[in-house]
Every structure is written in structure tokens, then in C-alpha cells.
């Protein structure tokens, strides 16, 4: 029998950050084993988690730097040649057009160390044009919390959900996307908690909730406002908490005075009595928590999709204690960490604004430079526009595949052609990489050493499991090589990832007490961790909020825009969500095995009543058209969706991209839950 050893590992897919062991046999990752003692998942792993090893030895991985020859063909080149070509291109463009002509895009799948270096490289070159593509799939649902609470993150650890007496789930399809969260919800339920589930689509198990409120698409926030109205009317709010811990109560009260529950019923489709019932349950339980997720965020007429739940929690004082709080479920494994690292055109490491003098000086000193660029940079959607106007000349993309993962893929693809130089670093020759002038092979998760911060703010270490395969070099080393040749030797002389983490702890206040040795432990460390002895802070805001005045801010929500209304030509509301087999590009290259053969095809869910009306059969091919384009899908007739509503999963984005348009004005997230569409059987009669 061959011997193997087990290495503690963190799942590289979603932001739950589940732990498991990878078994290594003769230098190869051979199998996985469950880690029963992990604080997030207690051994459990979802479909994706069971397939973590597939990506490591995937036959489509690239192992050598590539240079574009002509059109679509590439030549293998050496690392030296590649780095030299990159540096000379960057230098040339910098000289001719200045640092503002460079842009940097990364992914929330990269480690804290990688993303920290990535934004450092951009800023040292002299631009804030650095962003994370993963933030634009609804992942920015944490941003509004910085206004309400002072920090943009979840408040309590997932396991604390078990201590809740009431859990309000809003727009979060977590049974599909974050299955491990279900464990804690069931745990709470078995202890007698009441679960309220608000979504426009029936979850895969209705047994998870006591009250299911099937709202009209994109109206969850309005429904929550309805709950707030009732709580205010009946004086069910926590008066002491409001007096001592919050600000803005009167303004909120005033803003909602004009609205009535009848109106809320009309918009959301939920009867007044039901709204009152769930509002009373949430407000009167001694501990209530709120879970919300991607689906919740991008919706019409209300770009502040997360302000309403924050208001609700503050109003009832259900925050800052065990069993309470808000749990935004992020999508990618390191979404929270990437945000903390300052991968943002407007935020420096430590989540201070790029114009914040104090943090700017601190970072400049740490990086041995005179000053940082103080002009805000371009966000990913803005970059697309700037690309079209040829204002960006060079783009560096790390482990991100916007052409396959995002809306507007066609426009972006066209815009990329105007670049003088495109550098892509990835595991695969993705659609995006195919457009590049130079492609660098990235190492997979198992070949990296680094830390990830999960959706609970838990910083965990992923030690290197196997050596980088063939000729690959870890991303951080590649970035250091490029930076050194650009003349930033002093700033990028790291000998290992531990050194980078040390610098992170100096740059990001919440990470101060974190060290490689400390995050090695199975339970990691939950930031804020201000000193090396500090145990970490699992529950935030126990005494005060992180706002300047220490108070939680209740802010009224205004509904500015009107949703695209169904018309005779486009009679259906088109809604999107994540299905487990449509995770992201990492998976599109994997084709996760599944016993349901149809699951990897694009499908569209439609209510039986509508299907009958427009005369389409189950499993038949249909065409979905919006004002912007169309896509073919297999019809799935189900009562999961309301009449008048159709649902399609995210991705393959190259398809979705064709039928989406507008971008949410605040978070700049493609607006997904607001379009109207037409569904037509292929060859059949058009419905009206």
C-alpha cells in the first residue's frame, strides 16, 4: 500500500471557505477527506467541493507562457522572454500615455497575498485603475453596510445562525449556491427557530422554511420596507437600542410615513396580513438574523438592496449579539479578502478611500514612495467604456475571465481589440486569454500558498499542497519579477508569501494581529484582530459600530427608477440566479459530473400556466428574447416560478451577456432582475 499524507485545505470555490483534507501521494493530490472539526462546514462538502481536485490536473491547463503569433495562434515562449516583453510593453505605454492608460483586473479567487501585490503594482505604477471582476456579479452586496454599520462585511460567523430564534432569508438561493449554510439553518430550525424565506423562486427544499413568501421579482427590498412600516406602526422596535446605538431614526420614520402596506402588497404580491405576521416574528424573537445573497442585490428601482435589511436589523436591535446579525453570502472564495486588500478603484488596502490622507500617507511610507495616485480609478464597467474610447492602452488580467463570466461580453471583446497590449494570467486558455498578446500560466489553488478570507471574515491559510506543475511559477513571484524589472525592486523584494502577509498586516488595520502561524490553525482568525495576542472578533458591533460616531445609521431608501414593465411584446419578467452547475468560469472548464444530464445545458424555468398559454412543452427548445438579444434554452416547466416570471441561471455568460444591458448606478452591477422578455418555442407560435 502506498503511503499518503493529508494536508489541511480550504475549498477554492465559494466564500463559505469550507475545510477539508487533501491526500497527497507521491507528490500528487490523489483524493480528499472530510474535516469534521472545521468550524464552517463540520465535514460537509457540496458538489463543487467534492470536485476540487479536478482543476489541478485538468487536461486543458496551460503550463508555458504564450505569445500571440497571429490571429488565434500562440507560440510557447520562455518565462524570461515573456517577462521582458511585458515589461518593455508596459514601459513603452507608460512613457507614451502615462500611468492612467494602464488598467488592472483581478479575480476574487486569488489569495489575499496575490491581490494585495496586484493592487500594489497598479498603484506603484501610478494608477488606481484596479478592480476585481468578481465584484460585479452582485458580489458588492456588502458595500452598503459600510454606510449603515461602518464596515462592509458579515456580522457573525455562520455557525452562530444555529443560535437564532428567527432567520429571515432574503433573495438568497443558498440551498443551491451555499449549501453549507443550510446546515446551520436546519440546526436553528431543529432548536425551534422560525425561518422566513423571501424569494421570487421556490427554493430546492421548502422544508427549510416555515414561511415562504414568493415575491414578485426584485421586490424583496420593498417587502422589507413593508415589515419596517408595520414594526414602526405597532411600536415593535427596540427603543433602547435606537436611542443608545443608532442615528437617523426620525428621518427613516418620516420617509416611510407616506407609504402604506397596501402599496407594498401591490408591489410585492404578498398580502398585508402575511407581511404583518413575519414582521412580528422577526421583531419579537429575542434573536433574529438575516441572510441575503446575490439575487437580492441587483434589482430595479432600488440600488440600495442591502440598506433595507440593515435598517430592519438596527430597528429591532438584532445586531451585535449572538444569534443576530446580517449574513451577506458572497460568491467567490476570497471576495471579502480582495475587498479588504484594496482591489478597488476607490479604496486602498484597509478599506480607506483613495483620497483618505492618513491611510494614503501610511501606505506610501510602507511602500517607500512619495505619494500614491489620489485620483479615483476606473471600475471594471468604466474600464469597458474607457477601452471603447481607446483611453486604456494596456490591461493586465489575473485569473479572471470577463469574456465568459460577465455581461456585455460582446462589447468587451470588441473593446479589447483596441488595446496596445493585453496580458492575461490564467490556468486555462480562456476566451479572454485568447485575446491576449501574452498569456502567462497561473498555478492552481493546490499549488499556491496564501490566505483567503471567507464570507465570515475568517482568514484561513492554504498551504501549498503540491509543487507548481511543469514550468509554472506562482503568481506572486511573477508579479514581483515584473515589478522589479519596472524599477520597483525595493517594493517587491519578497522572498515568500509570509513576507507579503507581514506587509498586509501593516497596511490593513483589521489584519494587524494576524500571522502565518496563527492562521494555520483549523479555525483561522476572524478579523478584526488588532494585536498578535487578540483572539479575533467573531461578532461585530457588540459595543459600538464602526461608523465615525460609533452609531448604526438608519437611512431611508428612495426608489428612483421604474422597472421595465412587461409589455405585449415582452410579457415576461426575466430573472437570473445561480444554479449549482453554473458556478463560474472555473467550472465551465470543468463540467462537473452530475447525474442530471440536462443540468449543464442552459435552461429556462417557466410556470405551467404560461407554458400552456404560449404552447410550449417541457424539455422543448425555446428562444428567449429581450430588447437586446436572444438566447436558446431548454424549457423547464415548473411551479417554482410565478406566472409571468421566467428564470434562467447565470452563465454561460457569453449567452447571458447578449440579453442584458443596464448597469446598477451605485454598485455598477449589471442589472439582472429587472428585464422583460419574450419566450417562444423554436418553430412554434409566438406567445402574447
Amino acid at each position, binding site marked *: 500500500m502506498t503511503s499518503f499524507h493529508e494536508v489541511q485545505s480550504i475549498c477554492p470555490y465559494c466564500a463559505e471557505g469550507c475545510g477539508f483534507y487533501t491526500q497527497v501521494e507521491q507528490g500528487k493530490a490523489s483524493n480528499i477527506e*472530510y474535516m469534521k472539526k472545521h468550524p464552517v462546514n463540520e*465535514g*460537509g*462538502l457540496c*458538489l463543487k467541493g*467534492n470536485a476540487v481536485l479536478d482543476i489541478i490536473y485538468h487536461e486543458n491547463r496551460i503550463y508555458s507562457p504564450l505569445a500571440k503569433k497571429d490571429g488565434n495562434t500562440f507560440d510557447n515562449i520562455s518565462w524570461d522572454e515573456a517577462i521582458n516583453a511585458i515589461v518593455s510593453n508596459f514601459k513603452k505605454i507608460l512613457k507614451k500615455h502615462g500611468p492612467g492608460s494602464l488598467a488592472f483586473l483581478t479575480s476574487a479567487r486569488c489569495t489575499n497575498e496575490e491581490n494585495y501585490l496586484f493592487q500594489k503594482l497598479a498603484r506603484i505604477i501610478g494608477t488606481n485603475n484596479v478592480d476585481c471582476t468578481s465584484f460585479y456579479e452582485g458580489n458588492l452586496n456588502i458595500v452598503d453596510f459600510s454606510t449603515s454599520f461602518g464596515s462592509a462585511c458579515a456580522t457573525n460567523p455562520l455557525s452562530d445562525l444555529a443560535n437564532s430564534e428567527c432567520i429571515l432569508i432574503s433573495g438568497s438561493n443558498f440551498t443551491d449556491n451555499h449549501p453549507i449554510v443550510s446546515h446551520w439553518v436546519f440546526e436553528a430550525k431543529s432548536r425551534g427557530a422560525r425561518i422566513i424565506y423571501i424569494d421570487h423562486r421556490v427554493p430546492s*427544499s421548502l*422544508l427549510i422554511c416555515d414561511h415562504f413568501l414568493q415575491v414578485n421579482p426584485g421586490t424583496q427590498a420593498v417587502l422589507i420596507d413593508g415589515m419596517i412600516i408595520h414594526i414602526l406602526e405597532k411600536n415593535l422596535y427596540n427603543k433602547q437600542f435606537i436611542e443608545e446605538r443608532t442615528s437617523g431614526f426620525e428621518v427613516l420614520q418620516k420617509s416611510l410615513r407616506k407609504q402604506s402596506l397596501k402599496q407594498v402588497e401591490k408591489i410585492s404580491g404578498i398580502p398585508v396580513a402575511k407581511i404583518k405576521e413575519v414582521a412580528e416574528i422577526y421583531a419579537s424573537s429575542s434573536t433574529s438574523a438575516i441572510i441575503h445573497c446575490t439575487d437580492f442585490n441587483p434589482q430595479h428601482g432600488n440600488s440600495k438592496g442591502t440598506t433595507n435589511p440593515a435598517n430592519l436589523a438596527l430597528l429591532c436591535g438584532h445586531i451585535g449579539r449572538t444569534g443576530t446579525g446580517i449574513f451577506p453570502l458572497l460568491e467567490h472564495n476570497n471576495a471579502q479578502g480582495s475587498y479588504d486588500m484594496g482591489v478597488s478603484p476607490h479604496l486602498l488596502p484597509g478599506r480607506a478611500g483613495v483620497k483618505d490622507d492618513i491611510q494614503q500617507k501610511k501606505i506610501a511610507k510602507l511602500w517607500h514612495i512619495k505619494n500614491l495616485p489620489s485620483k479615483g480609478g476606473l471600475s471594471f464597467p468604466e474600464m469597458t467604456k474607457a477601452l471603447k474610447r481607446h483611453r486604456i492602452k494596456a490591461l493586465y488580467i489575473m485569473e479572471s475571465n470577463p469574456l465568459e463570466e460577465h455581461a456585455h461580453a460582446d462589447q468587451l471583446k470588441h473593446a479589447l481589440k483596441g488595446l496596445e497590449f493585453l496580458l492575461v494570467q490564467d490556468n486555462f486558455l480562456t476566451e479572454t486569454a485568447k485575446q491576449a498578446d501574452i498569456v502567462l500560466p497561473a498555478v492552481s489553488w493546490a499549488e499556491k500558498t496564501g490566505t483567503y478570507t471567507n464570507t465570515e471574515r475568517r482568514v484561513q491559510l492554504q498551504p501549498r499542497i503540491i509543487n507548481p506543475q511543469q514550468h509554472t511559477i506562482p503568481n506572486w513571484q511573477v508579479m514581483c519579477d515584473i515589478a522589479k524589472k519596472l524599477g520597483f525592486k525595493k517594493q517587491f523584494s519578497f522572498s515568500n508569501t509570509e513576507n507579503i502577509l507581514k506587509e498586509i498586516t501593516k497596511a490593513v488595520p483589521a489584519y494587524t494581529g494576524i500571522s502565518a502561524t496563527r492562521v494555520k490553525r483549523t479555525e483561522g482568525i476572524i478579523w478584526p484582530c488588532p494585536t498578535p495576542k487578540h483572539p479575533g472578533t467573531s461578532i461585530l458591533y457588540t459595543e459600538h459600530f464602526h461608523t465615525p460616531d460609533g452609531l448604526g445609521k438608519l437611512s431611508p431608501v428612495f426608489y428612483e427608477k421604474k422597472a421595465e414593465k412587461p409589455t405585449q411584446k415582452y410579457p415576461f419578467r426575466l430573472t437570473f440566479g445561480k444554479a449549482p452547475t453554473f458556478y463560474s468560469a472555473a467550472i465551465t472548464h470543468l463540467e462537473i459530473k452530475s*447525474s442530471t444530464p440536462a443540468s449543464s445545458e442552459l435552461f429556462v424555468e417557466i410556470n405551467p400556466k404560461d407554458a400552456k398559454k404560449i404552447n410550449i412543452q417541457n424539455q422543448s427548445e425555446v428562444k428567449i428574447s429581450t430588447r437586446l438579444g436572444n438566447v436558446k434554452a431548454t424549457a423547464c416547466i415548473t411551479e417554482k416560478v410565478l406566472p409571468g416570471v421566467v428564470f434562467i441561471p447565470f452563465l454561460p455568460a457569453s449567452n447571458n451577456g447578449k440579453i442584458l444591458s443596464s448597469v446598477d448606478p451605485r454598485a455598477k452591477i449589471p442589472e439582472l432582475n429587472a428585464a422583460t422578455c419574450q419566450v417562444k418555442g423554436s418553430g412554434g407560435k409566438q406567445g402574447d
Partner: protein
Amino acid sequence: MISKVLSINIDQCIACQACEAACEREHGGISHIFVTPINDKYSIPLSCLHCGKSPCVDVCPTKALEKTSHGAVIFHKIRCIGCRLCVIVCPFGVIQIDEGNTVLKCDSCANRLKKGKDPACVLTCPTKALVYEKSAKITSRTRKKRALKTKHKETKKG
């Protein structure tokens, strides 16, 4: 004597298919457990139930299927003639036969049990809908749950 059995907390299955993925991984790419939708809303993960009076064992002409003293129905490949009788009689449709005429069914992760590890589908289950425990423990938990529910209903009313 049966030590532990596979059981399902039926109300906790979210049809995430993690058990199928885990079973595939443990059994060379073929899953012996099937997340079976009952209706639009509910599903159950179904695998060999290792029936007390196993029809598959009864009909097997070559004793390729055997009921062990531990209560598991196990398969001996060497004795199998690929007659498919077991597939025909299995009331749950959880016995498959591959192209090489080999019977594929849940072996309770015998390889894992030998090392003291629970079956893969049980450990991977995100919601602990699948459990591997002594029968008495399972039933007592169900009773406890029931009691809690009744109690909770009463408090709600009161």
C-alpha cells in the same frame, strides 16, 4: 447484528447532489446514490437500503450478492454472471449494471468503514440529511424532534 445503518433526515435534503459527487469520487466515477425528486419541492437521496429480506440476494443464482452478518448486502464480482435479476427485482431501482455486466450498488463504503471512516455520502452531506448511526439512536432522535415540534406548536398557540 446490525451495528450502524444509513438513514435520511428526510426534511433536510436540499437536493444539492453532493452525495452523488462524493459517491462518484469514491467509486471510480459512478454514483450509487441518487437524489430522487418526489415532487417540485422535495427530494430524497436513495441508495441501497440493505433490506432485511433482500430480494436481490434471494434471486441471485450464483450468490454474487450476499447478506452479511453485519446486515449489509455486499457484492462479489467474481461470482456474478450478469443475469440482471437483481436489477429487475430491486424495488428501489438502486442497482445498476454496467457495460461490462458488473453489478454496481452501494457497498456502504466498505473500504472507508475498514479504516474507521463513515461513508462518503454521509460525511459530505452539507445539511446532515444523511446519517450513519445505530438505528436506536436515529429513532430516538426522531421522537425527540417530534416532541420539540409539538411543544413549539403549543407555545406558539399560548
